[in-house]
């Protein structure tokens, strides 16, 4: 599972399309506005690759739409832009601390062997780590199913690698051009 050349090509096309659209933000503003526009168009391009089939890409599309609705509509045109922007994501996963604490208290009443303790501790750590993952994957907080979370993470990483790969090539080429 790696960024394929067709993914990279498509990302580049979509990114270029986006950059063209945000051109006013690039040409006539300061460095930080320009950076935001560049990054936003890169994120929209990355999300659009999945054509709304993954949770993370839908979450990213919605988030980007709040920053530049027009850009998102244009880049997504033909992929049900309207539905994707407005569709409600499912309920947020909330960890009710009281419930967790209470259930821990209840299970502690039974006597535990050392190995059971270790297993329980390992499970707690895994739980903590998956929560961490939820915080870095777009839409993670809506993924109640841990299996879904991991599958989405895999896809998200490959997409990020594509994004970084292409952006790096472009920036390297542009910098080389300047140095000539």
């Amino acid at each position: 599972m790696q960024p394929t050349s067709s993914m990279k090509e498509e990302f580049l096309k979509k990114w270029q399309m986006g950059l063209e659209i945000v051109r006013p933000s690039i040409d006539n503003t300061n460095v930080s506005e320009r950076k935001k526009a560049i990054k936003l168009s890169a994120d929209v391009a990355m999300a659009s690759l999945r054509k709304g089939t993954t949770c993370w890409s839908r979450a990213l599309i919605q988030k980007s739409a709040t920053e530049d609705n027009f850009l998102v509509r244009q880049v997504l045109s033909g992929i049900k832009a309207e539905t994707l922007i407005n569709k409600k994501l499912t309920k947020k996963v909330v960890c009710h601390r009281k419930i967790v604490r209470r259930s821990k208290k209840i299970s502690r009443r039974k006597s535990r062997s050392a190995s059971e303790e270790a297993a329980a501790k390992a499970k707690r750590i895994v739980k903590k780590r998956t929560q961490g993952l939820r915080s870095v994957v777009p839409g993670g907080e809506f993924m109640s199913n841990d299996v879904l979370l991991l599958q989405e993470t895999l896809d998200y990483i490959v997409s990020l690698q594509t994004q970084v790969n292409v952006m790096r090539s472009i920036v390297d080429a542009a910098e080389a051009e300047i140095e000539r």
Partner: protein
Amino acid sequence: MSNRRSRQSSNAPRISDDQMIDLVGKLRHLLPEISERRRSDKVSASKVLQETCNYIRKLHREVDNLSDRLSQLLDSVDEDSHEAAVIRSLLM
């Protein structure tokens, strides 16, 4: 007499061992550091998850950094210059 304690989780269904092993294995292949270690090493699930988080954050920082560099580049180039034209053709 087997004392199988089946714990009822209050929220999401827990990952089954097989599914976890499968997905964690796939994550391993994506992560640059872990895949460099010897195959025979048993890497714990929590370690893989942690490395995954770190890797994603690292990728985020790279995107941020690249956007920054590009933004600076466009700033440094004179609008009408040859370089500007070349860069624009790369980007748009």
